[in-house]
């Protein structure tokens, strides 16, 4: 397993390098820079040039890229022009918000999605199957920002059960944290629950039609044992693949949800940085986000190996 993990980690290096390089090139192509935000609408070209020189933005792209990579090897992601603080500090401070949002949403989406998918497969071609799939389709079709606002109005304004927005750190107040994360996590989970439900149903239908399942049933094995031990475990590979993909989608979807629910996460940080052209935050934020994606992919690969011995034996 250690060799498997090492190979995976090594293969992440070129991925992260390409991500950072592409980010650099995109930022170079985008018109406008931070000077517009700093100087305001009345600035002259000379004002902007002076600010650009002060921030080093007048240097050629390759020179800035080399300096950035040199700093990166020293563990320095740069300094935010607008936040006036190190990028790593700003991003890592917000990472728990985004990770807890995406993590909670992932747990909810996976639990609900798998439950719906299993129910639909076991009760194939019944009203239960159709009901589960309609629910999944509704989840897939509703735009998350709209659903978020509806949740705020319903549970925040009308019923007053949850706060309408804001974040409470877990260490400060666990109950407050749970209350502040409930609506955003449910909103984010709903959209992805449908994907997991449909994949689970399809994988389970495939597995439940296999000979060994029929044999297990013929032996008089309990239905739950057949479904969960023999059926679900063998259907897990495609489900885990989808869950891995969805983790990435949830992390990117968190950008919208963080804005709607006023959560100070990495998504909002990067969006704000893009709007103001705070390049160091964009570069550093995207690199750290890419690291999370890569880590999730490695985790998914490890789960493959755990669920299917053939995968680890092939390595």
């Amino acid at each position, binding site marked *: 397993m250690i060799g498997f993990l090492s190979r995976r980690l090594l293969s992440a290096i070129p991925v992260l390098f390409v991500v950072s390089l592409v980010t650099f090139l995109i930022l170079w192509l985008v018109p406008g820079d931070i000077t517009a935000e700093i100087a305001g609408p009345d600035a002259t070209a000379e004002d902007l040039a002076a600010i650009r020189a002060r921030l080093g933005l007048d240097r050629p792209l390759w020179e800035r890229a080399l300096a950035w990579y040199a700093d990166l090897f020293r563990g320095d992601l740069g300094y935010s022009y607008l936040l*006036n603080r190190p990028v790593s500090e700003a991003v890592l401070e917000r990472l728990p918000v985004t990770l807890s949002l995406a993590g909670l949403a992932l747990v909810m989406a996976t639990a609900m999605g798998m439950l719906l998918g299993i129910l639909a497969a076991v009760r194939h071609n019944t009203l239960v199957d159709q009901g589960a799939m309609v629910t999944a389709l509704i989840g897939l079709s509703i735009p998350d920002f709209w659903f978020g606002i509806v949740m705020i109005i319903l549970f925040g304004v009308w019923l007053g059960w949850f706060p309408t927005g804001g974040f409470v750190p877990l260490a400060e107040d666990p109950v407050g944290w749970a209350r502040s994360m409930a609506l955003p996590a449910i909103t984010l989970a709903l959209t992805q629950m449908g994907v997991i439900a449909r994949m689970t149903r399809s994988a389970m239908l495939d597995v439940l039609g296999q000979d060994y399942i029929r044999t297990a049933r013929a032996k008089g094995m309990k239905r739950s044992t057949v479904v969960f031990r023999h059926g679900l475990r063998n259907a897990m590979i495609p489900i885990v693949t989808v869950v891995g993909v969805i983790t990435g989608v949830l992390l990117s979807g968190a950008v919208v949800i963080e804005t709607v629910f006023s959560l100070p996460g990495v998504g909002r940080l990067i969006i704000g940085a893009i709007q103001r052209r705070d390049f160091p935050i964009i570069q550093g934020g995207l690199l750290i986000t890419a690291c999370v994606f890569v880590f999730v992919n490695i985790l998914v690969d490890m789960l493959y190996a755990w669920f299917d011995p053939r995968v680890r034996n092939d390595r």
Partner: protein
Amino acid sequence: MRPQLQQSGLFRAITVASVLALSAGALGAPAALAQVQGGELVVVQGSNPPSLDAMVTSSQASRNINMNMYETLYGFSEDVRPIPILAEGVEISDDGLTYVFTLRQGVLFHNGKEMTSEDVKASLERYRVVGATANKLDPVREIEVTGPYEVTFHMVAPTPTFLESFSSPRAPAVIIPAEDAEAEAGRTSLIGTGPYRFVEFVPDSHVTIERFDDYTADTRHDGVDGFGGRKTAYLDRVIFRIIPEPGAQVAALEAGEVHIVEQMPMPAARRLADSPDITLYENMPWAFTTFHLNLNVPPTDNVKFREAVQVALDMEAIMAISSEGLYQLNHGWQYPGTAYWAGDIGAEYYNLGDVDRAQELLAEAGYDGETFSILTDPNIPQHGRAAVVIAEQLNGVGINAVINQVDWPTALSIRLQDEGWNGWTLQMGIEPYLGPVGTIATLTSPARPHFVVPDPELDALYQELISGVTLEERQETFSRIQARMYEIFASIKIGDSGLMQAGRANVQGFIPFRFPRMHDVWLEG
């Protein structure tokens, strides 16, 4: 023709309430209401303050918070006159070359240290280096400490409008402890002399300030007066929450989680107008809605074409849609009722929507269907909405108007190019409030005029304006400036828009102003 001044009817009642409240505030704290000390008030705004180092930013999001924590030597009164705040007063020599500022004694910084002239000199020297509008100190050759509570400005040349520009809150020249004077931009300890002091800033979440119990109130006044006056902090803490989504802001207000929404969406204001839990505050006028033309490229390099654009526009439709109904029609380049209001000048060209005349002018200009590119952005919603209506109206008279909508940094970048755009929609917020100098400075040299190519006559008038010795002289000059604006049609005044604000009904003493003043505000019940 009478001046074009018209206000949307929907919120007339609110306006009356606001004016009454404003009058009460200007005359001092309302005596009939019992103020309550304590409590925590939450204000909502849509974006992070770019900096809490007040000198380095001209952002409204920063000003909203900073002006509760910092003070200046001079600032504007409720009726936009320079009044002493941390200064006792100023003596200006007859030749206009020396300003002797006497300081109020016993004023404490948030760290407990008393403010002296050393702090004032150090702060203003820092402002020269890092101030976002450092050029307002250009007329000052030297700042000299002439006593423990006295500083003297030695001027380069007489500058009659210096005190007005020095009082500007745009990027305020606040007084901070001398120990912070060497700090780079954004690296101070955020210590001021204001009624509230800094507690914490969590970007994208909130800024917290708390009452400064040792605040030294200006006892020369009976109550608040603009940026100055006698300020009393009743609240224990004020939290400025950052909620970017307008719908979420309104939901938080309705749920009672926040007390004041700094910028209320108009549809929500209409919906909540009758709610007993919510009070609406109409902050009118708040900004100019303007449309700047690029004189460097065809077809907008032709004055006849620009005149055609001016007469083609129906300002009422543009304002109604861009402001979502909170506006007043005003052809002037100053607000009605202010010292420099220039009356009817130019009104004959305003809000005409005259298709026939526009088409005649286009024929005279030899317009041949060239593209008229309107640069705009969605970040400030009025910009994009105004551009859509303008484009529709111009298409209606035969102008080939197209909209180039990009994000705000890109728009700023494009508008600095000499080519590639013809018109640019812009909300001018703080400049009109600052008076004619602040407004016209953006349209004349030595800055790059918003319409790209300087107009020598307008430049000369601007110089005359800033060197006019008496108010009457400057008023007369400004009248000629407004007349010139309606000769060159380089920048088109669309109208004045307002800012709708809202609060919970238990918020008392709140008077809409250029920033949410948290002093003299208290919570009832």
